[in-house]
């Protein structure tokens, strides 16, 4: 029997499918705007957030789903991307780099941190790796919180005194936004005509493009020399080593590329919010991303895309807005329904693990049916 869920792409085929998807993607923000007016629930901003989480989850999927390295502190790279963007564009630092340049630097910086954080964990496997990454996930926000005022001395010499790098727990605000002044000048428009930094529809398209870049890279990598090496490491690291795959380089590449996706998404997210705080990158974020990957199907890029959109939108719209609206009116006026958020995901995980451990949309199904042994003696092996 064909598994419909496992093959979300087989429902429609050919070019028509892509045209329909493109039309849907373009119309969606305008439809959502109408819906927002009708229902009073924030939709576009939540979908934007969901798409950011999809881009993040794609990065985590490379580390966890393809390379099989359980990373419980992945939000650290999200924080690094966002804070790098903050440092590059926060007015007090006098750099104020352009958005379009800064986001790529953020991706690069996150990749470098991916290697730095990945390096000490290379000899660890399974549970031990998870624990160390968990620690890194805690260290980065703590570091950000404490770099608001620091003094660096080296052998008695003060190198940096009372320097405010991250503005501590107050966070960085305002942050750089995409600037289209050059287009305004080019077309002779009024100053500020293209000032779209706070327009959710603009951000919707900006984030769709970001997610598409990440998605494209993930799809290409999945089916490439490096992607195969990741999967080999996941399946059997020792055997992969004997087959000529260098486990160290391969794992570092997974950490670096996973982190770079996260750095890019973090930078765009920071710019969209216009303000970032250490609290945005808590442990829960790592867990939420891991839930997206596991529920959707580890190693499945399309699965993580679809699952990520569903789960993150469900979280942002239904759990955060609709549910409180229903219950807080009369039934439970004082109760914070949103605190049940993790109960939902917990139950979801349990149900999935019991009934569909490979996730909702597992990777493209390969023929896993057991093949009956053919003839006793096989033609290909005979001496010809």
């Amino acid at each position, binding site marked *: 029997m064909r598994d419909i869920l496992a093959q979300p792409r087989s429902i429609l085929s050919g070019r028509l499918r892509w045209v329909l998807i493109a039309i849907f993607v373009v119309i969606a923000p305008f439809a959502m705007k109408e819906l927002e007016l009708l229902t009073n629930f924030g939709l576009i901003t939540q979908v934007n957030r969901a798409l950011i989480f999809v881009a993040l989850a794609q990065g985590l999927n490379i580390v966890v789903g393809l390379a099989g390295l359980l990373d419980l502190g992945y939000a650290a790279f999200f924080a690094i991307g966002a804070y790098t963007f903050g440092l590059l564009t926060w007015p007090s630092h006098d750099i104020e780099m352009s958005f379009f340049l800064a986001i790529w630097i953020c991706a690069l910086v996150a990749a470098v941190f991916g290697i730095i954080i990945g390096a000490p964990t290379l000899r660890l496997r399974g549970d031990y790796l998870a624990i160390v990454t968990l620690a890194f996930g805690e260290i980065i926000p703590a570091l950000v919180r404490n770099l608001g005022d620091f003094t660096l001395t080296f052998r008695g010499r003060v190198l940096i005194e009372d320097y405010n790098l991250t503005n501590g727990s107050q966070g960085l605000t305002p942050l750089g936004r995409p600037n289209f002044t050059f287009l305004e000048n080019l077309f002779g428009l009024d100053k500020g005509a293209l000032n779209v930094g706070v327009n959710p529809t603009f951000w919707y398209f900006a984030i769709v493009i970001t997610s598409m870049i990440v998605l*494209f*890279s993930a799809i*290409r*990598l999945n089916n*490439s*020399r*490096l*992607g*195969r*090496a990741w*999967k*080999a490491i996941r*399946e*059997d690291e*020792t*055997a*992969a*080593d*004997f*087959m*000529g*795959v*260098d*486990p160290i380089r391969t794992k570092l*590449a997974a950490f670096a*590329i996973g982190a770079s996706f996260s750095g890019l998404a973090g930078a765009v997210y920071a710019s969209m919010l216009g303000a970032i705080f250490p609290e945005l990158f808590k442990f829960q974020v790592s867990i939420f991303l891991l839930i997206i990957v596991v529920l959707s199907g580890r190693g499945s890029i399309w699965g993580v895309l679809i699952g990520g959109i569903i789960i993150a939108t469900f979280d942002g719209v239904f759990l955060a807005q609709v549910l409180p609206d229903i219950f807080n009116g009369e039934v439970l006026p004082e109760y914070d329904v949103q605190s049940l958020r993790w109960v939902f995901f917990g139950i979801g995980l349990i149900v999935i693990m019991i009934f569909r451990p490979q996730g909702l949309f597992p990777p493209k199904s*390969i*023929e*896993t*049916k*057991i*093949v*009956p*042994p053919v003839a*006793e*003696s*096989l*033609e*290909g*092996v*005979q*001496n010809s």
Partner: protein
Amino acid sequence: MSVILEAKGVSKAFGRLVAVDTLDYTIEDNSINSIIGPNGAGKTTFFNVVTGYYKPTTGKVVFNQRNISGSRPNQLTRIGIARTFQTIRLFNNLTARENVLIGMHHRLKSGVFGDIFRPPAVRREEAKAHEEAGQLLDYVGLKGYEEHAAKSLPYGHQRRLEIARALATQPQLLLLDEPTAGMNPNETQDMILFIRKLRDERNLSILLIEHDMKVVMTISDKVTVLDYGKKISEGQPAEVQKDERVIEAYLGRRALEMLKK
């Protein structure tokens, strides 16, 4: 014939247990060599030393005039040493073709950006690799199974797939750890012919560990017997078979005395 691999005084100790004890061993070009010995004689440990999984405690291993003791397995794969495993270790959730492609990993040149943007050179390389993987699968008799998951293949096929994967690394020396374990007599006979074919057609040197004496005595150019990590006999199959030390190691001294009477 020239020597392709030479182990000089190789020992490997785990704490106080000396698994391989000052072993001298050579493999000649284009030959089939077997290592036999009772369980725990140090055969697999020696394999693991030669393939870089263990660093020898003392002594050194020279492959093509190059000291390889202390090199990592993936480095040795690159210079031409490949192996299979006693218990099959395939990449279970990958297809047969992907398994073979992993063996080609070190020969392919594409980097991260090449993988993402796929310029024509990368496309050509991938297409060629896929085709070559198909040919290798055909060579080991797995035509038609290219897109099957490795774990779904029957046992004998999995053994062949392991060999195809090892061949994909383009080795000069192929180490087979009990290639006929768990096979029925027909399959074993096929494997004997196949190993010979590998030596003759692919110009390989083969080192194998094998318990099936019929296999060992049929195909080996040289047989080496290990016991407690030491070499106790070496030579052509017929010579080794008659060696009293070998009979003693396998059957015990009493048995030897009884045989003499």
